[in-house]
């Protein structure tokens, strides 16, 4: 049994790194659609991605016992260590996300940024689109890294090959939700345009993404039944109060509830977007919280 080495900062890093990758993908995808609503969502998601990954990175540094030595990891390349690969991936992704966000900052605010704010490159949509397209695979790898980081350890609950796919889908789903919520909250004048286009489009996207997410969650639990995996991880995840959080919080609230409403013929998805997207975000956070803590119990 291992001691509790990782706590809340690691949970927050995993959650916000995954969310950032999903938000970045949403920004690039929304950018390919026409209409002011999609532009509003692309802008909100593009600005959210670097803020979210920056917060996640700061949590990762906060968790270190020697915080000022964090840069040592950037002097080493170790292909066998997901932590080392993750540091390089996060560095590359946060740089791309920050540059991509620069294209979306309103011109009057961008011009106030010293030195680089006045560069004409930020007005060139072709450069923005190429950068966004190049950043999507990196964003995808970041969301997978959060799963591989845990999956490559010796902790029985985490040593599960489905974890990378589970965290990948969770990152995409929560990133889409956070990007859309940001657009709805921070662009009150565009709410109607956002509801007409992007909310409808994301509901369609969730009809594929959430079943895949649910399948990964079921496969994750099914893997624990494989002979030789030990009974301890299975019992600690699906029984007692932790089982309640897993099934009701992470699975029902985070996946099943928004998925059912995305397929429903009623207009609930459009009339209650805050509740549905909030539920998805809370479920995604609970999933990481539970897995990180229960793995170390």
């Amino acid at each position, binding site marked *: *049994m*291992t*001691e509790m*080495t*990782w706590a809340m900062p690691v949970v927050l890093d995993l959650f916000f790194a995954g969310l950032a990758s999903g938000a970045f*993908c949403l920004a690039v*995808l*929304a950018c*390919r*659609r026409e209409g002011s609503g999609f532009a509003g969502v692309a802008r909100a998601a593009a600005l959210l991605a670097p803020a979210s990954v920056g917060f996640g990175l700061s949590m990762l540094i906060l*968790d*270190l*016992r*020697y915080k000022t*030595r*964090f840069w*040592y*990891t950037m002097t080493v390349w170790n*292909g*066998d*260590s*997901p*932590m080392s690969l993750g540091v390089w991936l996060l560095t590359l992704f946060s740089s791309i996300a920050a540059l991509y966000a620069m294209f979306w900052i309103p011109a009057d605010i961008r011009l106030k940024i010293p030195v680089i704010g006045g560069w004409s490159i930020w007005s060139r949509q072709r450069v923005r689109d190429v950068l966004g397209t190049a950043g*999507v695979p990196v964003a*995808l*790898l970041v*969301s*997978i890294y959060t*799963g*591989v980081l*845990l*999956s*490559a*350890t*010796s*902790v029985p609950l*985490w040593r599960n*090959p*489905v*974890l*990378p*796919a589970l*965290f*990948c*889908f969770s990152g*995409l789903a929560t990133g889409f939700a956070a990007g859309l919520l940001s657009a709805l909250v921070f662009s009150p004048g565009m709410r109607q345009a956002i509801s007409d286009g992007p909310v*409808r*489009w994301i*509901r*369609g*996207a969730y009809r*594929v*993404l959430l079943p*895949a997410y649910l399948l*990964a969650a079921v496969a994750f639990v099914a893997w624990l039944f494989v002979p030789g995996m030990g009974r301890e991880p299975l019992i600690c995840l699906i029984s007692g109060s932790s089982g309640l959080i897993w099934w009701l919080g992470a699975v029902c609230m985070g996946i099943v509830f928004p998925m059912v409403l995305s397929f429903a013929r009623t207009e609930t998805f459009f009339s209650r977007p805050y509740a549905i997207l909030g539920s998805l975000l809370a479920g995604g956070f609970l999933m990481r919280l539970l897995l990180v803590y229960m793995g170390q119990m």
Partner: protein
Amino acid sequence: MEHRRERCIGCGYCIQSCPFHVPLVSPAQHTMRKCSFCIQRIDHGKKPACVAKCPSGALTYYPPGDATDSLTAYGMTERLHMVYKLSRKPAEYQLPDPVPRNTMTGGQIWKWLGGLIPGALVLAWLWKKACSREDES
């Protein structure tokens, strides 16, 4: 193995990765702490310090290549850095059974692919959907 304490950032990943739960965090130093197996003593033909000072005979040191005796050699065929000689089942010593094999790199590639393939398929579908001019029903 050598531990350069001044390079340790205290991330705890080594603790989560070791199947034998050997590395620990030093409460005083706040860095990882791990036995070096007295490599400097072994290099000079001596036993590790813990074995040399053990008053009850609980610890025995077998130099590399030493013939196996009646005890089970745990980790010999898996080429573990340190081989355990056990008189009972590994589980009774809280050791993982079977012995974890050193397949980290190969195993990790599958873990990356296990996330990459389904994730890329879903993203590709979303990309196609985003480029489509059809309105959502």
